[in-house]
C-alpha cells in the first residue's frame, strides 16, 4: 500500500509541475502581467509558511534570527549574501539561546 501511495504522490506532484508548462500556452496580456507578479509574493508567502508552519507558531529564536538577518540584507538582492547572513544569524542565535 505504501508503494502505491508513493507512486500516487509522484503522479500528483509531477502532474502539478507539468500542467502549466506542458499543456498551457505561454500567458499573454493581463494573464502575463498577473503571472509576472506572482513569483515574488509566492516566495514571500512560502518564507512565512516555512517559518511559522501550519499552526502559525512562534518560531525558535535561531530560526527567527536567521529570517530577520535574511530580511535585513534582502535589499542587496543577492542570494549568496542572504544565505550567508541567514546562516551566520542562525549560528549566533544558537549560541545566544
Amino acid at each position, binding site marked *: 500500500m505504501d508503494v502505491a*501511495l508513493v507512486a500516487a504522490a509522484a503522479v500528483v506532484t509531477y502532474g502539478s509541475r507539468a500542467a502549466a508548462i506542458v499543456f498551457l500556452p505561454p500567458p499573454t496580456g493581463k494573464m502575463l502581467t498577473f*503571472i509576472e*507578479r506572482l513569483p515574488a509574493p509566492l516566495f514571500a508567502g512560502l518564507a512565512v509558511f516555512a517559518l511559522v508552519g501550519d499552526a502559525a507558531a512562534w518560531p525558535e529564536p535561531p530560526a527567527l534570527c536567521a529570517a530577520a538577518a535574511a530580511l535585513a540584507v*534582502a535589499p542587496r538582492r543577492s542570494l549568496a549574501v542572504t544565505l550567508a547572513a541567514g546562516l551566520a544569524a542562525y549560528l549566533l542565535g544558537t549560541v545566544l539561546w
Partner: protein
Amino acid sequence: MRVKGLPTPVLPAVLPIAGAIGVFGVVYGAAARPLLGGPLTVASSVVVFSGAAQFTMVGLLAEGASSLAVLWAVAVLSLRHLALGAAIRSGMPDSRSRRAGAAWFVIDETVGLALARPDESHTVLLRAGIACYLAWIAGTVVGVAGAAAVGLEALAAAVFPVLFVGLASLMARNLDLVARTSAAATLTLVLLLAWPGLGGLAPVVAAIAVSAAGRR
C-alpha cells in the same frame, strides 16, 4: 537582462541551495526509513522529488492518516507548482517533450533561479534542477544509511525561510513588487492564524490575491 544575485555560471548560486536540500534529504531519509523502509524511502525521493510532499506524507503516515488524506495534503502542497510553472512557461522551449522533461525539475528554488535569468531560464532550470535532484537523493541515501540527523533538522528548517526570502528579493524588482511581496507575507500570516487548516494553501492564496489586485 540579468537580475543581480545570480552569477555566471549557474553552479555557484546553485551549490548552497543544493547543499541545503541535501541536508534536508538526510533528515528525510532518517525520518522516513522507520515508516517506509530503506528502499522505498530512497525510491520516494527518486520519483517524487518534493521535500514538502514527502515530509508531509511521512508525518501523516506516522499519525495514522488514510491514503486519501495523505494524497489530498500532497495535492494541496503541489498547487504552487501550477503558479511556478505558469511563471516560467514563457522561457521554456517549443518542444512539448522538452518541456515535459524540464517540468520534472520545477521546485521553488530552481524556478526562482531560472526566473532570475529570463534569457536562459530553461538552461538554468535544468542545471539547477539536476544539482538539487542529485543532492536530494544523495541526502536521502545518507539519512537512510543511518546518518544522525540530530541538529540538522533545526538547521534545515531555518534555512528554507532564508532561501525563500532570498528568492523573493531577487524577484521583487520594483517598488510595486516589493509592496505586493510584503503584502503577501502579511496576508499569509493572517490566513494561517485565522485558518490553520489552510496550511500550504495559504501562501498560494495570498500570492494570487496580491498579484491579481490593482491595475496593470
